[in-house]
């Protein structure tokens, strides 16, 4: 009994690449099961969980490892979506080319923005990225309308050329839908596809976290001055991290278009960049799982909490006497429905004040307490023997 516990703990401590990714894959693929009891098991929301998971995991490679706070990552989300929809319009409804193009083009734009922004650090870097983001956002509504279709957003049309698809078969009547070699990307199949992409993306991020490259990024975050005097040119490392996280964001943007083939500029607004920062901090900056946790909480609040209205609350508190029910509904209602931002804000403040390392810090503390207790227990038993 004790040895099994010991083995489990060893497995937990070692966290080899394989165990981590297997546990992670199992957790992601069974989401429809374990999210069912809390009412989050519907394809739309599940897709959002995993897609924004990719966004946050990538963002964490920049913010978590190097400490550079970008306010402009929504640009890559938007660029990814636009590129994917253009790939659907011009070439094929197959999602793979769309994802490939989206990742590459976001990478290119990230290289340009990163090259300029990384000339500065700290608050100046953040402001530069914010300036770029706002520039792209406004261009999408003005100069770039031929590419973005302005406020209407970029959509599929009947007469799109779709060179590759139309070469092999005559266009079917009606708007086509996105597919992967015949498999439709709607509903649960869309979720499972995005989930597989998230698992791959997570694997890549994990490899980066556990490579000399990742360690060098952490060193840059810890003391860039020392890093330079240690013989490393920090700028190319930082730009590389920026490009990688931009590519992750582009991939996430492409998946947004895969599950719902239209792209609008509101995806590039600075609030979207702010959201991914919130997610990362809430879950735990610089940890592998933290950002995903943050995504889960924010998307859950946004989609489930915001639908709770007074009648739902009245039902919930119906076991109370009438005056108690009214009282509780009056108190709770500002925090749900349209007021879900209030809950998020309070949660965010509590975490920042008590757990600056995010929820993962809380888990680490619990784990540490449990593990040290376990070790003490086993020590005392060996002494008795």
């Amino acid at each position, binding site marked *: 009994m004790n040895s099994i516990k010991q083995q489990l703990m060893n497995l937990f401590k070692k966290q080899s690449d394989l165990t981590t990714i297997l546990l992670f894959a199992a957790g992601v693929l069974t989401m429809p099961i374990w999210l069912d009891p809390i009412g989050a098991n519907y394809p739309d929301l599940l897709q959002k969980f995993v897609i924004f998971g990719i966004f946050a995991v990538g963002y964490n490679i920049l913010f978590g490892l190097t400490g550079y706070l970008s306010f402009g990552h929504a640009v890559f989300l938007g660029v990814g979506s636009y590129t994917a929809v253009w790939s659907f319009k011009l070439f094929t409804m197959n999602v793979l080319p769309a994802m490939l193009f989206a990742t590459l083009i976001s990478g290119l734009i990230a290289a340009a923005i990163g090259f300029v922004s990384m000339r500065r650090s700290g608050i100046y870097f953040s402001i530069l990225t914010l300036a770029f983001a706002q520039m792209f956002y406004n261009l999408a509504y003005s100069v770039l309308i031929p590419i973005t279709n302005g406020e209407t957003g970029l959509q599929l049309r009947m007469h799109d050329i779709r060179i590759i698809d139309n070469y092999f078969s005559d266009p079917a009547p009606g708007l086509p839908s996105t597919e992967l070699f015949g498999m439709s990307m709607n509903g649960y199949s869309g979720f499972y596809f995005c989930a597989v992409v998230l698992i791959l993306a997570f694997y890549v991020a994990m490899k980066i976290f556990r490579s000399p490259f990742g360690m060098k990024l952490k060193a840059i975050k810890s*003391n860039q001055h020392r890093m330079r005097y240690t013989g490393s040119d920090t700028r190319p490392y930082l730009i590389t991290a920026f490009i990688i996280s931009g590519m992750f964001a582009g991939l996430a943007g492409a998946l947004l278009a895969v599950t719902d083939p239209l792209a609008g500029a509101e995806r590039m607004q600075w609030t979207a960049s702010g959201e991914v920062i919130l997610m990362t901090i809430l879950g735990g900056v610089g940890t592998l799982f933290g950002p995903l946790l943050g995504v889960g909480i924010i998307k859950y609040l946004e989609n489930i909490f915001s639908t709770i209205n007074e009648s739902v609350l009245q039902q919930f508190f119906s076991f109370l006497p009438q005056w108690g029910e009214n009282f509780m509904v009056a108190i709770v209602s500002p925090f749900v429905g349209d007021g879900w931002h209030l809950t998020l804000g309070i949660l965010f403040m509590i975490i920042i004040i008590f757990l600056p390392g995010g929820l993962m810090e809380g888990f680490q503390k619990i784990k540490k307490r449990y593990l040290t207790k376990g070790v003490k227990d086993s020590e005392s038993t060996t002494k008795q023997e």
Partner: protein
Amino acid sequence: MSKPVLKISNVNKSFGGLQALRDINLEIEKGKVHAIIGPNGAGKSTLLNVCVGLLKPDSGSVTFNGGINVIGKSPHEINQMGLARVFQTPEIFPDLSLLENVMIPAFSKRDGAFHLQLFRSLASETKITQEAKEVLASVGMEAKADEIAGSLSRGDKRRLELAMCLIQHPDLLLLDEPTAGMARHDTNKTIELLKKIKEGGMTKIIIEHDMHVVFSVADTISVLAQGAIIATGTPDEIRGNPIVQEAYLGGAEL
């Protein structure tokens, strides 16, 4: 005489009206520990910053390893040439473990200024991990390898910083007041460590206030006063030099 590792020729530097360095000529011999001493404001730190290319002198040249120009090079280029530096306040990676602190310079040495290896596993870096452990052991810190460096005492941070430089096997190690702000006990430990490194034959420049440290470890001493070198010689020569006693030590017996 073997070729000098570092050669400083006719270096002048002034800040506004203040001439910080006057016509400095210095040759640092291979395998020697060269100490630079002088009262506050003598120009010691300025000289050191010129040596590492951080400050551009008004005139003169600084060359490394037989003719490589140092002036105007960025910090990582200087380090890649083989010149490592210990700072007055220890500069380490406070958020990383001691082992990681020592592994990073080893990576920089092996990989150069920039090298992309996104998917190489840290677990497969057995050689550098082993090397880092040995270097940590050589400064007596192997027991703390997994601790976070930021929580170390100042003396321990200094030893860690030395370990970070040692793992790179630099051709020249610059130490800027390695015992500044240290308790006596830590100072003695650092002297022991410096003596131990000296046996390894690494060339070093030490800038130091503490005469006890200087006379314990230096082979050659240069005395700087008001931006000029007034004497260079062995510890015994410097001790007996009347000009030095007059200018720096105020006539006091050493």
